[in-house]
């Protein structure tokens, strides 16, 4: 390769990288979201099942009081290591409206694994009424619907973790927070209606719990992540062999072209 071609190649590569950087970067950041080292990142990244279970307990005991997660069904919990019976037991904890029956009446029955997670409120108005006018967002996709930190900035888990650990009480001296609101460094505008949901406990630190729920919500948004990585590895292995063979063939076919 001549010098000129190398320089041209470099210019192109730099331009391309700059373009990728622009494309993938976050818009103007107002809030403090910090990048974390997640086990599910990287070429072989996967979830830690124990952590997912811990995160599920947090969701069940804390978040689900206000936040729905309607895209998930109880049967999905088998993916994080619960047995069929355990999943049945989880589902049976809630009463689900079904019907109409043969007489045309709606009736309540215990939940089944095929039911989707029961929402804490029947509708948006009820959710707002129960939360000081604020609407707790559905959490099914929250890990994908929030920007994270880091180079490509697509790990919403970063945001969830930063939000859980971002409460400052009392707020900085120059900030006034209205009654019923809370100061949070990760939230846009720093003023959030949600009271601090987690705190240090005997079993786990706040940071640990924040990580656990962030990982659980990532799984909820992207349950096929592990399968995706495994498929990707196979695809790349295939492509490496394919490309090497194609290159060797190309060299041979072109050998006598001058």
């Amino acid at each position, binding site marked *: 390769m001549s010098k000129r071609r190398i320089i041209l190649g470099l210019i192109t590569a730099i331009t391309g990288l700059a373009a990728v950087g622009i494309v993938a*970067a976050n818009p103007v950041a107002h809030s403090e979201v910090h990048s974390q080292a997640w086990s599910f990142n990287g070429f072989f990244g996967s979830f830690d099942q124990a952590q997912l279970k811990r995160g599920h307990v947090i969701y069940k005991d804390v978040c689900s009081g206000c936040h729905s997660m309607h895209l998930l069904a109880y049967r999905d919990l088998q993916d994080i290591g619960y047995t069929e019976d355990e999943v049945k037991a989880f589902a049976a904890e809630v009463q689900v409206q079904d019907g109409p029956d043969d007489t045309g009446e709606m009736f309540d029955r215990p939940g089944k694994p095929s039911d989707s997670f029961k929402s804490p409120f029947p509708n948006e108005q009820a959710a707002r009424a129960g939360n000081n006018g604020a609407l707790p967002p559905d959490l099914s996709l929250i890990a994908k619907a929030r920007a994270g930190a880091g180079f490509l900035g697509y790990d919403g888990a970063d945001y969830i973790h930063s939000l859980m650990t971002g409460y400052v009480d009392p707020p900085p001296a120059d900030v006034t927070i209205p009654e019923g609101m809370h100061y949070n460094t990760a939230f846009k505008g720093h003023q959030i209606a949600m009271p601090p949901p987690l705190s240090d406990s005997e079993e786990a630190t706040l940071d640990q719990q924040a990580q656990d729920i962030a990982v659980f919500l990532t799984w909820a948004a992207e349950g096929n992540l592990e399968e995706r990585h495994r498929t990707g590895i196979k695809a790349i292995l295939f492509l490496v062999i394919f490309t090497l063979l194609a290159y060797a063939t190309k060299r041979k076919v072109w050998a006598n072209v001058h």
Partner: protein
Amino acid sequence: MAAPVFKNPVIRWIDHRLPIFSYLHHEAYEYPTPKNLNYWWNFGSLAGFMLVVMIVTGLILAMQYTPHVDYAFNSVERIMRDVNWGWLLRYLHMNGASMFFVVVYIHIFRGLYFGSYKAPRELLWQLGVLIYLLMMATAFMGYVLPWGQMSFWGATVITNLFSAIPVIGDSIVTMLWGGFSVDNPTLNRLFVLHFLLPFVILAVVVVHIMALHRFGSNNPLGIDTKGPQDTIPFHPYYTVKDMFGLGIFMMFYAFWVFWAPNALGDPVNYELANPLSTPEHIVPEWYYLPFYAILRSIPDKLTGVLAMGASIIVLFFLPWLDRSPVRAGTYRPIFKWFFWMLVFDCVILMFCGKYPPESYWMPFAGEIVDATTFTERVAELQGIPHDQALNAVGEMWGVNAAGGSFGIKIVRLGQLGTLYYFAYFLIVLPLLSIFETPRQVPLSISKPVLGGGKATAHATAKSMEKA
């Protein structure tokens, strides 16, 4: 070229009545191709590959998707969660759009650098621009289908552009919407058109290839092929070279699909469309960003829309704007610089399209800050009161160079970028055609190549010295 003799009697029987095999043999097998094409020439076939990928994955996705405002979002999530390999299909399609544009942009810039738009390939070029326009329309409509927040608000912003047209603008928008706001009828028609347009693209691609095969590919030297000594048959030489390129490209594609499938998209689109809540920043997908920047550079709505349209329309006239007889930029010492500045300019415009126009870019601080923060910084650095700084920022055209800090308003940068974009086509190229002295172009493809690769650079260098 004589018609081939097929050994298989069935093929011979068919070919005698319908010479489809002879045609394929002629156009895809023995088709004479310049023997000096470099790897930049791989991107045409890669674009064709991406079109097929998009049509196949799109077709299967359409079998599972429901084009209704109440069900669209959840039907996409159903594909992701419950349909076998649905996540793979959707990520291939979603990232495939980006890959398609990556490939097509490289293909276009290759044409711009090596003068592939010049006689006798003007129509070939214009058909390409038409394909690009259709792609932009198709991609926009596809982005609306998941019915997320950015789908809805993107659709609102883009369809509203038509309201800038005097007198009939509002009626056109009502017709596009099928009502008085972006709603279910809009989603239905965008879905139908998103399904239809790829096949229109396919048809134009066929015509694009017909036009290509009339005179054959341009080549890195930008000179005509002089005879059989300059060409090689398309198969196996370029089929195998394209296979190798395809392998490399697919690894790049696979990286996004399997490890960063959502990195190129906006997180906000994972929230259900809500007509009552506007997202903080409405930003289009990356491949529209330069045009979005041009649109926003001009405060007047109609002029902005016209400028955005003109930025593509100007490409149709390119063959007559650049009248230099030399095709390849390699032999045009001044053109080269302007060309690379255009590439850089498009990256700058992309950057401007991404960020709010009222914000300030501070390149040395590596930050983009909003107007208030920027004014505060100026006040702090210059030790002047806040309101004075506010004036200073305005007067300084958004630039502050005090105390080693430097900031430029995104919209100003976008205006400079827009200016260069149009200047390149409307001023630089026509003037260069008159004033530039090109280097001496090789006489033929095979001549400088005699004696192998090393001699090429040498021979070119020598002819340069003489010129």
